């Protein structure tokens, strides 16, 4: 009797798995407990074993694809056995409910669409192979926290009527942002999408999840000339799990904070010398910070990035937002492509932007599209503070006053000009270590200012 090999639930929170590698080929004979394939779950990489012997008749899901728990990934049977019924079932379990409309979508691995369209057929843990005739045993879900995770592990939360309306209108639910609880897409959201046409195929501002089939795909950078391209990195299972858990813990953007104290002596000396040479023009402390930030971002592209729901986008240039206090709030003019500009150019453009920001005369493109921000409260005698990230940026630097204080240098107490910076990081994108590496580079540039001139 032919049996199906299904994506087993290998951890309690696993909802889908990525098929890393097949250890067998079609036609191979396998014995019970032979390893069939290696699976990447949200926690670890694990093996799926054969429970029954036979010949591998069909590999349904190719390596690299991600499929929901319970999906048929292969078929084992006798060499001459008719497996057409199982093949049909496997095909049915793979095809999503909305009809595929454009050729681009039709080319994609169907396995990638399955998780968003159909709830995973529950499979008992550790049962990798089940008899073809076995009825599907319904599993009573008792762990409700598990349900809350589903929205970020591929399944789209949508109210039944919203799903039906989107189906009828031919709208891709993956392109609609849900405004209901937990991001649920509700009727209003679909009606809006229909009204604005924002979710029709081909007009996506954010690429649809299905584009990820090739692993890494490119989209034109949102700002600036298209000479460089932003790079989308497909999410690993671990990255999805980190994003999900941390988001649950602290709202939409899970912040963490890194603080470093920087010796500003050399940078300030350099600035003084510079300003004597370029008078009456001058370079501000903030310009040094912007320059150092941009250079550090250029060396740490994983920080110059954004969480995009189902992927992380590494931006093509370092576009630095500079927080400017205005009469009843603040605005953040953007110094685009700061990583490709010299200090003097940064100083000139920033002075212009800040002046016009205070007059409320910025054009929208001059305060939108930053990839990272700097907020300086040093002039208010603030020693240290934490800033709130402005999404979709993944980080912001909060800069305090530079103050003279005693520090130990080479075993001696010396008076030095020190400045504290605190970086807020979006933990979905940045980890403690990667944030710390960035901050170390930033600090090194200010402490050895020649670094950022090179």
């Amino acid at each position, binding site marked *: 009797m032919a049996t199906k090999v299904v994506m087993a639930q290998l951890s309690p929170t696993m909802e889908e798995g990525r098929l890393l590698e097949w250890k067998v080929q079609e036609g191979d004979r396998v014995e019970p407990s032979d390893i069939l394939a290696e699976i990447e779950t949200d926690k670890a990489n694990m093996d799926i074993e054969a429970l029954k012997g036979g010949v591998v008749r069909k590999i349904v899901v190719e390596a690299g694809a991600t499929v929901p728990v319970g999906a048929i990934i292969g078929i084992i049977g006798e060499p001459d056995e008719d497996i057409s019924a199982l093949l049909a079932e496997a095909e049915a379990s793979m095809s999503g409910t909305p009809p595929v409309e454009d050729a681009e979508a039709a080319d994609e691995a169907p396995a990638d669409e399955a998780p968003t369209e159909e709830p995973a057929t529950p499979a008992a843990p550790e049962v990798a192979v089940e008899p073809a005739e076995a009825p599907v045993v319904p599993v009573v879900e008792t762990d409700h926290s598990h349900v809350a995770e589903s929205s970020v592990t591929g399944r789209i939360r949508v*109210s*039944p*009527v*919203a*799903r*039906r309306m989107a189906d009828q209108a031919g709208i891709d639910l993956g392109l609609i942002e849900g*405004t*209901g*609880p937990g991001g649920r897409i*509700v*009727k*209003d959201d679909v009606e809006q999408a229909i009204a604005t046409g924002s979710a029709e195929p081909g007009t996506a501002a954010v690429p649809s999840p299905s584009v990820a089939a090739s692993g890494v795909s490119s989209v034109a950078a949102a700002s600036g000339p298209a000479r460089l391209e932003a790079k989308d990195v497909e999410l690993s299972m671990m990255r999805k799990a980190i994003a999900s858990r941390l988001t649950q813990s602290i709202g939409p953007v899970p912040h963490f904070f890194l603080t470093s104290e920087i010796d500003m002596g050399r940078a300030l000396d350099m600035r003084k010398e510079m300003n004597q040479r370029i008078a009456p023009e001058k370079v501000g402390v903030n310009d040094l910070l912007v320059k150092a930030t941009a250079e550090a971002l250029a060396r740490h592209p994983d920080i110059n990035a954004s969480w995009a729901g189902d992927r992380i986008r590494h931006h093509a240039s370092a576009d630095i937002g500079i927080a400017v206090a205005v009469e009843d709030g603040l605005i953040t003019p953007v110094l685009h492509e700061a990583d490709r500009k010299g200090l003097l150019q940064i100083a000139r453009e920033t002075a212009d932007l800040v002046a016009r920001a205070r007059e409320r005369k910025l054009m929208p493109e001059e305060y939108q599209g930053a990839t990272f921000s700097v907020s300086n409260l040093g002039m208010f005698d603030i020693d240290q503070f934490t800033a709130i990230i402005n999404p979709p940026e993944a980080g912001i630097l909060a800069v305090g006053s530079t103050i003279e204080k005693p520090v130990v240098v080479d075993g001696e107490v010396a008076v030095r000009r020190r400045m504290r910076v605190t970086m807020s990081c979006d933990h979905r994108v940045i980890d403690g270590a990667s944030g710390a590496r960035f901050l170390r580079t930033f600090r090194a540039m200010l402490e050895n200012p020649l670094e950022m001139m090179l």
Partner: protein
Amino acid sequence: MAVITYREALNRALREEMERDENVFLLGEEVGEYDGAYKVSKGLLDEFGEWRVRDTPIAENGFAGLGVGAAMVGLRPVVEFMTWNFALLAYDAIVNSAAKMYAMSGGQYNVPIVFRGPGGSALQLSAQHSQVPDPWYANIPGLKVCTPATPADALGLLKSAIRDDDPVVFVEGELLYNVKGEVPDGEHLVPIGVADVKRAGADVTIVTHAKMVHVALQAADILSKELEVEAEVIDLRCVRPLDTNTVIESVRKTNRAVVLEEGWPIAGIGAQVVDDIQREAFDALDAPVARVSGLDVPMHYARALEKLIVPSPETVIEAVKHVCYLD
């Protein structure tokens, strides 16, 4: 169209049916000499005499059982309980005798009886005298359960109940007896098991019955004025059999539902309505169905606590905002 009270409508129903069919008779505590504890049987003793209007001892199981026996041999008794709280003593006669007789006798005996009286909370009658009996009887196959909210429905449903060949539990609202409303002139019958749309609306369906119909209508008025949310209020009128079709039709239109009842939440009428909606109208839902019920505690005597326990327009509005994603 005359405007009369709910109490007068019930009195008219009894009088009309007793005039129409000499087999109809009334029995219960103080229904005769005293005109009924709530004056529903006012004047009937004088009009129909002591053979048709019988005062009974304070022995609910006894006179309810007497009624069942009378119904089995061809009479059409209307048994009044002073309140449904006291009918707990007659639960055996109603559930084990009246409801089962037709099935257990293989169809030889039907039991055309009406058990009626007031139910629900009134004002500070405390734990034992404020109960909503609707779910206790809605659970029993063999019974029909009517819960009219308006004078017209009280008149039309009581007349239908008396004419019905099966036992009918007829729960009147203790606080509804003085409610006034238009009642059609001439013969007015309301079929058992048909809901009524008391207010039309496109944004949310409020499914309710009995006294809570008035709470729902108050909530709907406020929702319309303050939030421009138009609620459709469905009065089930009977909780067994349930008119699921009217509910489903409405939810398919509004995509959202709040189910409201005065009684307790667990195994309440609303639990059944929600089940029907999720099964029959799943694809129409934009939000999980919300329930509003009395709190899951014995009724307290203190006025402030009683107000907290019984659903109010405010609690209904909160639930409506929730299913409309307005909170």
